[in-house]
């Protein structure tokens, strides 16, 4: 799994590339939290358009970031999910707390500048 970060206003876009499992989850979590802790970020967008595989360990990472940002008044959204990964998300009921958008542009449009 490789990660790409981009900060747009107060939104942090994290592009996940490759396979997100328990092994990669530890690194992903650590890198994201380091970015958040640097400050200036309100919302997090997981861009999953280049993510080929995800198991329930990925759910844990996303829920963990949701909790962290919620306590700071922000939110987490997901974009670009392929059908296989969508099934894992649906099973978990995560969409009740984390919104899903077709693509990154729509997610950003919805979040605005994150003020």
């Amino acid at each position: 799994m490789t990660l790409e970060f981009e900060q747009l206003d107060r939104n942090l876009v994290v592009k996940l590339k490759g396979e997100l499992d328990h092994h990669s989850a530890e690194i992903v979590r650590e890198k994201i939290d380091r970015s958040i802790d640097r400050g200036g970020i309100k919302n997090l967008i997981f861009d999953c358009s280049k993510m080929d595989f995800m198991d329930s360990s990925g759910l844990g990472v996303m829920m963990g970031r949701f909790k962290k940002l919620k306590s700071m008044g922000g939110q987490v959204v997901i974009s670009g999910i392929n059908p296989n990964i969508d099934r894992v998300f649906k099973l978990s009921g995560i969409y009740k707390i984390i919104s899903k958008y077709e693509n990154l542009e729509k997610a950003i449009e919805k979040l605005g500048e994150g003020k």
Partner: protein
Amino acid sequence: MITNKMRLEIDAKSENESFARTVVAAFVARLDPTLEELNDVKTAVSEAVTNAIIHGYNEMKGTVYISCLIDKNTVLIQIEDHGIGIEDIGKAMEPLYTSKPDLERSGMGFTVMEAFMDSINVTSNIGKGTLITMKKTFDSIHNRVD
């Protein structure tokens, strides 16, 4: 080929999770599954192997045993650890239940296995280990030419 089987033993290390699901996918590929079916198997294997590593062996030294048996267009997959075992299997299998929320586990592993495979059976003995048996029949075999 009517039946075929393999057995794999790996160190209980997180870097072997992707290796384990790759091996099972490569073994099952001869049944010419759809990409979705193949992903289902990979995901279920990933869940069971991850559980063996984090829960069964508490991220300490150990061996995970994976076996696959292909019989016509059905695959039987067994994932076994000789770790701590599960006290209450019913509770363990409840959606969202996890004994390790501190590790940011979602508690969805068993639910994913159940949803992605046709059947799953769990047997476990405290202090002895856990055996997960999963089965899946592929539809796509009917479209095969050779």
